[in-house]
């Protein structure tokens, strides 16, 4: 947790991961993803934006190693080590029988590290997501937003090179969602993590990311990539700025094309 990587300007970032012509076909018939090329650089905040069925979650599962590509390759610069990856699902996905601290301990526990050895890192991760006061709470005692924060703390506690987020805030109310969006950006500013964020919200993707990858369905594929060059930190002023509105318009248009092509 202590290594805070600086986020370099786009164009100067080292390559972290590359998807080369990745195909995924289910049951030999359903083409979930066709020839996806994507280069992920260190410090990127990439949103995969698209309608349902566009393969954005499939792409995430492939990167996470939960499924193998039918064709193509996924290459990690310098190879993939344990703890290189943190994942946040749409659900908080916490173990209900374990306390908040024990849930965040899980990635370390699986590597055989005792709670005592990593207590500091767990506390640090919980502080980062604003839950420093709740290490001993059980998930059921927390609100939906707080559970999601625990999930984020678990994803970043190992200081991973890449964090995958699969529509993490989709099930939350709008107010909580905006708060978590702001906090996520603050968090990223602090620890300089690389994020791939799946969403179906144009506004969320433009607010959060510096790269928006627009995808279309049937077959799932990338149709466009937009660069959102607004500087971080982004806040309410950005959310209401003409630049934000302009980026949203471009992204919406790209999404509209994606929908047409699918139809």
């Amino acid at each position, binding site marked *: 947790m202590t290594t805070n990587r600086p986020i370099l300007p786009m164009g100067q970032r080292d390559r972290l991961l590359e998807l080369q012509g990745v195909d995924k076909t289910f049951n030999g018939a359903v083409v979930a993803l066709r020839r996806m090329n994507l280069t992920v650089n260190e410090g990127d905040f990439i949103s995969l934006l698209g309608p349902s069925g566009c393969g954005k979650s499939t792409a995430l599962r492939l990167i*996470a190693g939960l499924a193998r590509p039918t064709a193509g390759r996924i290459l990690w610069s310098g190879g993939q080590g344990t703890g290189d990856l943190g*994942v946040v*699902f749409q659900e908080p*996905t916490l173990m*209900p*029988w374990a306390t908040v601290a024990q849930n965040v301990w*899980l990635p370390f526990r699986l590597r055989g590290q005792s709670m005592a050895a990593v207590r500091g890192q767990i506390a640090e991760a919980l502080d980062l997501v604003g839950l420093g006061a709740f290490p001993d709470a059980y998930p059921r005692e927390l609100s939906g937003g707080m559970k999601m924060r625990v999930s984020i703390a678990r994803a970043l506690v190992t200081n991973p090179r890449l964090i995958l987020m699969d529509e993490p805030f989709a099930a939350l109310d709008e107010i909580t969602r905006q708060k978590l969006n702001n906090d996520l950006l603050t968090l990223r500013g602090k620890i300089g993590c690389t994020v791939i964020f799946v969403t179906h919200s144009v506004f969320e993707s433009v607010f959060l990311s510096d790269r928006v990858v627009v995808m279309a369905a049937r077959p799932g594929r990338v149709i466009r990539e937009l660069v959102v060059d607004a500087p971080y930190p982004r806040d309410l002023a950005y959310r209401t700025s003409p630049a934000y509105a302009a980026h949203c318009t471009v992204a919406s248009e790209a999404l509209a094309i994606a929908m047409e092509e699918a139809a």
Partner: protein
Amino acid sequence: MMALDRTVSQAEALVDADEARIARRRRVEGVGKWLMPVIVLGLSIWGWDRLVVWNAIPHYILPSPGRVMQTLIKDWPILFDALLVTLQITFMALAVAVIGGVGLAILFTQSRWAEMSFYPFAVILQVTPVVSVAPLIFIYVENRTIGLLLCAWIVAFFPILANTTLGLNSADSNLRDLMRIYGARRWQTLRFLQLPSALPYFLSGLRIAGGLSLIGAIVAEYVAGTGGIGSGLAFRILEAGYRLNIPRMFAALILIAVSGVVIFAGLSILSHLCLRKWHESALKRE
């Protein structure tokens, strides 16, 4: 003065008529939950007593509750020894059912092949009435205690096996994915994810199995029949039946029923203690 008035009226307003009614109903229900069964039980016993007295029914057909209690006290040494024998079989069977049920469930979830091969056998064992298998068991198994144990086990292990298998398989699929992403080994997924997920299911199976192992033990004793020394409650009931000692039959029956209730209550408390911190079933609703 004005301010004071307002606080008073606010305090009154906190408990309006509707809230007061709900609170009252909750209190009444709280008392009734305990009181009602006691009243109904008391009335039934009183009705039983009146039935016997008013119709002058002889005790060798239907003894009065008082007479049953007297017999229970008088025959306590015999009945208590028999109870111990039956309970011993019951608890041993339950213990073996837990080991066998959980062990098989873990084997089944670790190996699809084992599950495909052996699950049908578990079902066959379960659906075949133990009464019909027991005579064969007592032919092949010399040792009577082991025979009894085997019968009780056959009845008791299936709910534990079925429930624990279901529990081990119902671990959250996202958490499974997470385990894979973090490179968890098989035993780690079992230990940290599947076993805790299965705990509520296992405990619910255990409560059923507790009652069933008692039933299994009693049924097996009936089939095993004689033996005299070291005989359980079922044997005492059979024996008392031959001698038309109806009060003793009732007394033994009461002991069996009470044992069953105590076992169920004990396992329910165990279940509550294990789950109270996190599981929906054990949480108090606001």
